[in-house]
C-alpha cells in the first residue's frame, strides 16, 4: 500500500490499468444485455461499492468499523426526512446525509478511536445496535418497525430518475466521485499519514503525526461516504426501516472490503462487484446471502490474504519464481 504514496512510482501501474479496464467492462454489461435485472444489480453494486469505499478509508488507519450500516442509516434518514418533511431536493438531501453522518462520526470519533483492534470492533458493533434501537424508539421520525415507504426518487434539476436505466448513470457518476476522492486521499499527504498510522501507530505519533486526529479524519470521511451511500439507497429502493441498517449490513460491508482487499485502493470496488451479484445469480440463494458471504470470507482469508485485488500480484509473484 505504501507504493501509492510514493510519487516516484509511475502514475498508473500496469496492474491498475488492467483493473480499470476490467471494471469499465463490467460497468457496461447492463447496456450490452439490456436486462432491467442487470441494471438493478449494477446499481446495487455501485451503492455497495461506495459504502465499502468509505469503510476502506477507515481501514486505512487500521480500524474496522462495524457501525458502518448505522452511518449509512443516519445518511438515509437525514435525506429522507429533509426531502419528505422540508421539501428539500433529493440532490441536496444526498450530500446532507453525508454531512450529518460525517458530523456524528466526528463528534463520537475522538473517544471511540481511543479503543483499538477488537475493542473498536466491539464498540462499533454495539453502536450499530444502539442506532437500530433508538430508531425503533422514535417512530414519529423513523416510521418505527414498519419503516418509511414511498420515498421520492432521485431527481436531477427537475428530471426524475424514474427507471433503472436512468438511475444507473447517476449511480456510476456518484461512484466515480467517491473513488476519485479515495484516489486523491491515497496519493496525497493524508494517505501517507493514514498509512503511517496503520503500519505503526506509536512510531507515527513520535514522528510528529497527530495520530488521534488522523484517525478521526479517516473515520469522519469514511462515515460521511457511508451516509451518502445510505441516502442513495433510500431514494433508489424507496423504502427504509431501522432493520435495513442492522449490523448484518455492516458485516456485509466488512466482508466485501476484506474480500476485495482491505488495503488495496480498488479493493472496495472489486469486493462489491464480486459479492453483490453473487447471491442474486445463485438462483433462490438470496436468503442464504450471509452463509455465502461467510464461506467466501473464509476462502479469502485462507487463500487470498491481500483479497481479490491482490490476486494478480500474488499470481505474478508465483509465476515469476517458477
Amino acid at each position: 500500500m505504501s507504493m501509492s504514496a510514493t510519487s516516484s512510482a509511475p502514475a498508473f501501474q500496469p496492474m491498475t490499468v488492467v483493473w480499470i479496464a476490467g471494471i469499465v467492462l463490467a460497468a457496461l454489461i447492463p447496456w450490452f444485455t439490456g436486462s432491467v435485472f442487470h441494471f438493478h444489480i449494477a446499481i446495487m453494486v455501485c451503492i455497495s461499492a461506495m459504502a465499502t469505499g468509505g469503510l476502506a478509508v477507515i481501514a486505512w488507519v487500521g480500524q474496522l468499523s462495524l457501525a458502518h450500516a448505522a452511518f449509512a442509516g443516519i445518511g438515509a434518514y437525514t435525506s429522507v426526512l429533509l426531502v419528505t418533511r422540508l421539501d428539500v431536493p433529493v440532490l441536496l438531501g444526498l450530500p446532507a446525509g453525508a454531512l450529518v453522518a460525517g458530523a456524528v462520526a466526528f463528534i463520537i470519533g475522538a473517544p471511540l478511536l481511543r479503543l483499538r483492534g477488537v475493542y473498536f470492533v466491539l464498540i462499533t458493533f454495539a453502536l450499530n445496535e444502539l442506532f437500530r434501537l433508538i430508531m425503533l424508539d422514535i417512530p414519529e421520525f423513523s416510521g418505527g418497525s414498519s419503516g418509511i415507504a414511498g420515498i421520492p426518487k432521485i431527481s436531477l434539476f427537475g428530471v426524475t430518475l424514474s427507471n433503472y436505466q436512468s438511475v444507473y448513470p447517476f449511480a456510476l457518476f456518484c461512484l466515480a466521485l467517491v473513488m476519485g476522492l479515495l484516489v486523491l486521499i491515497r496519493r496525497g499527504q493524508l494517505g501517507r499519514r493514514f498509512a503511517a498510522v496503520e503500519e505503526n501507530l506509536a512510531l507515527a505519533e513520535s514522528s510528529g503525526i497527530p495520530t488521534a486526529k488522523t484517525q478521526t479524519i479517516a473515520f469522519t470521511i469514511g462515515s460521511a461516504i457511508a451516509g451518502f451511500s445510505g441516502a442513495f439507497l433510500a431514494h433508489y429502493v424507496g423504502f427504509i426501516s431501522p432493520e435495513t441498517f442492522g449490523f448484518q449490513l455492516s458485516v456485509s460491508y466488512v466482508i466485501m472490503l476484506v474480500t476485495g482487499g482491505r488495503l488495496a485502493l480498488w479493493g472496495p470496488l472489486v469486493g462489491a462487484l464480486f459479492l453483490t451479484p453473487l447471491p442474486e445469480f445463485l438462483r433462490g440463494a438470496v436468503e442464504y446471502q450471509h452463509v455465502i458471504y461467510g464461506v467466501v470470507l473464509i476462502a479469502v482469508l485462507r487463500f487470498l490474504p491481500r483479497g481479490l485485488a491482490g490476486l494478480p500480484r500474488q499470481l505474478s509473484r508465483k509465476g515469476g519464481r517458477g
Partner: protein
Amino acid sequence: MNALLEISGLTKRFGGLTALSDVSFGASEGAITGLIGPNGAGKTTCFNLITGTLPATSGTIRFRGQDIGGLSPHKVVEHGLARTFQAATTFPAATVRENILRGALLRHPLGLGAMVFGGAAARDAERKARQTVDEVMEALDLTEHAHREAGTLAYGHQKRLGVAIGLATRPGLLLLDEPAAGLNPDEVDRFATMLKEIRTRFGLSVLIVEHHMRLIMRICDHIVVLDHGEKIAEGAPEAVRDDPKVIEAYLGADHAK
C-alpha cells in the same frame, strides 16, 4: 554548558511499582549524555515520560526552558525532541525513503485541503522534505537501501532506519533507546562514528540509553546512572565508571540473575 533538557523530581508509579522515583538530571546543548543502569532501572520509562508517551506521576520536564510535561508525543517532537524505540521500529510496508519522509514532513506542515488535493504547496513541502531525506540517508549510510521495503531490512539496518526517521524530524535533542543492542562489534564501532558525525553535521544533542559500556564510555560527555528507579550517580564517564555505587548496582544485578 546550557541545559537543553532539564528534568526535576520525575516520578512514575505503575500501581504499586515505582518505576522512577524523584529523578533529576539535565542534558546539555551539544553534548552526548548517557542514561545507563541495569535492566528494569527505569530508563525506557524515563524516555516515555520525556516524550509524552506516558504521563508522569509528578515532576517537571523542561526543554529549552519550556515546560513540555503533559504534551502528547507528536507535540513533543514538534518542540524538537525526537526519540527512537528500544525494539527495531519502522513502517514495515514502506520503503526506506518513504519511512524517513514520514518523519521529514513534520517540518513542512500542510492544511487538510492541501493534504488531500495536493497543489503547489504540497509539492513544495514534499520537495523540501525529500532534500532532508536524502541528507539523512546519506549521513546514516542508508542510500543504497532507499527503495527497499523496511520490513525486509536486516535488523541492524532497521535500527539505523529508526534513528534516521527521528533525525529527519530535525530535532534539537535526539533520544536513543539502546540503538546498538543486537549489533555486532563492527557495527557498534561504525555506529559510534556515525553518531559523532551526525551530531556535528545536524547540530544535535543526544541522550542515549545503552547497555554497551565500551560504546557509552567512548562517546558520552556526561553519564547519568539509574538503579531501581533512582538516580545513583552522575558525572564524567571515568568518574561514573569508578563509582563504587555504580559498580555495586551492576554487580548486584549480575549476581541476582
